[in-house]
């Protein structure tokens, strides 16, 4: 992309964001919330794989909410399973992902 094309594209996106101001605001808030929750979920995994109840106990977040975020991250290869502990699966960050 040339410099001029990049500039045009930036102006176009800016105008589009202005047109969809409410949506952008809402999704930005959602993204911030998701990032904050995922930081809480991923932090304890640095010490080793964790189950959903363990993560719930550490973070204070509801188990179903943690499971949803784990499921989302697993779908896009940001979390992997690491065996089982009793009737719960263990989850960890994949190698090379912090």
């Amino acid at each position: 992309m040339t410099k001029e094309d990049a500039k045009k594209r930036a102006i176009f996106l800016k105008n589009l964001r202005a047109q969809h101001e409410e949506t952008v605001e809402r999704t930005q808030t959602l993204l911030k919330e998701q990032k904050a929750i995922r930081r809480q979920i991923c932090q304890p995994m640095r010490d080793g794989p964790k189950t959903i109840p363990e993560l719930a106990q550490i973070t204070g977040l509801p188990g179903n909410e943690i499971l949803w975020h784990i499921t989302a991250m697993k779908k896009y290869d940001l979390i992997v399973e690491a065996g089982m502990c009793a009737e719960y699966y263990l989850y960890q960050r994949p190698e090379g992902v912090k």
Partner: protein
Amino acid sequence: MTQENLHVDTLVVGGGIAGMQSALDLADQGFRVALVEKEASIGGKMIALSKVFPTLDCCSCITTPKMSAVAHHENIDLLTYCEIGAIHENGGGFVADVTKKPRYVNEADCTGCRQCEYACPIDLPNAFDMDLGAMRAIRVPFSTAVPQKAVLDIENCILCGKCEQTCPVNCIDFTQQPEQFQIEADAIVLATGFGLTPTDAKKEYGAGQLLNVVDALTVERLLAPTGPYGHVLRPSDGKEPDSIAYVQCAGSRDTTLGVEYCSRVCCMYAIKQAMLLSGALPLADITIYYMDIRTFGKGYEQFYQNARAMGIEFVKGKVARITEDDDKNPVVRVELIDEGSQIVERAHDMIVLSVGMVPGYNPQAIYGVPIDASDGFIEIPSPNIAPTVTNHEGIFATGTAVSPMDIVDSIVMAGAAAAETAAYLQSRNGHSYKLPISGSMEMEVAHV
């Protein structure tokens, strides 16, 4: 690419299994067909299921080839992500006003590589996985979607432009707008499908607030190889359940919900899922609380007997209430009819509501086709003689838009609708066709 107006022999509305089968049967006879689907992919509800009863064949393995056949058939124009806003009569035929919703992706260029999806930062509940899993604001609808093209949900897009930067073929187009076009057709086949009794319909069963009380379609996704968790886990905490119970007639045969009819498929899908769960979780106890088991089709009774022999517990009794204990285990209160009618409370790890089929769409306003006042499905004047012929000449109906039925019956009926439509189309070309309906034919519906 602008969608041009079309002139076809038949307009098929709905891209589920019934719509696809009708379209294929007509197209194979040489008729031009336009298949309109409101979602971004065809496949309907069947493509979300794990296996079919009583053969336990893989649903995807049956549906995907049909989806592909529809997409590649030379006589079928497949129009996904389109909605019909109005139908006008036109000299014995019809003209449909159609809106093509913007995908914000150039369909012709998109290769379905999903790189845009991986680049998108926004995760949203995935309706295809009954909200248990996530999807991105831009995504290919599901792994076997047809067409395998991305679609951008502008209502939930942060407009960061990452998808546009990542796309290797530059097919993201934020400038797309809804497009209007028309389809002229001599006949219409309505295959608009069904809805499910909402899980929050019954307050006695937790009104949708109990995390570990799910509906049967959710379990289909849990059992599917492409399911959200990749395993059967309960939604509250990811536990592999040791004890699962089915509550039958949780949305059918229930006057309090206004659904007096039997949905015909719940007994069989519950038995099927119980068998599949026994395979996925060999140590789990599976219980089915039922009023009576209705196994009406070929091989169905044997399927039921096999389930009993596998150790699935069938308990005769209508569940009165579902509550939750401190560990979020659902607790059923039920009268055990075969054990002296004693009333007991039993805790399970997860409960599945065998929800019923309800009408998914009312075609009266757009198509002028009335619904049956008794159940809300499309009215068929002579269901025994002409089960696909509606009150409106030239408009036929098929599948679960007409009444609750299983996949086998939907496919058979789709073939019938195609045959009826073909005869009607031939009559317009000078061949004789007599509508198999007369005002005096009033018979009771023969449901076995």
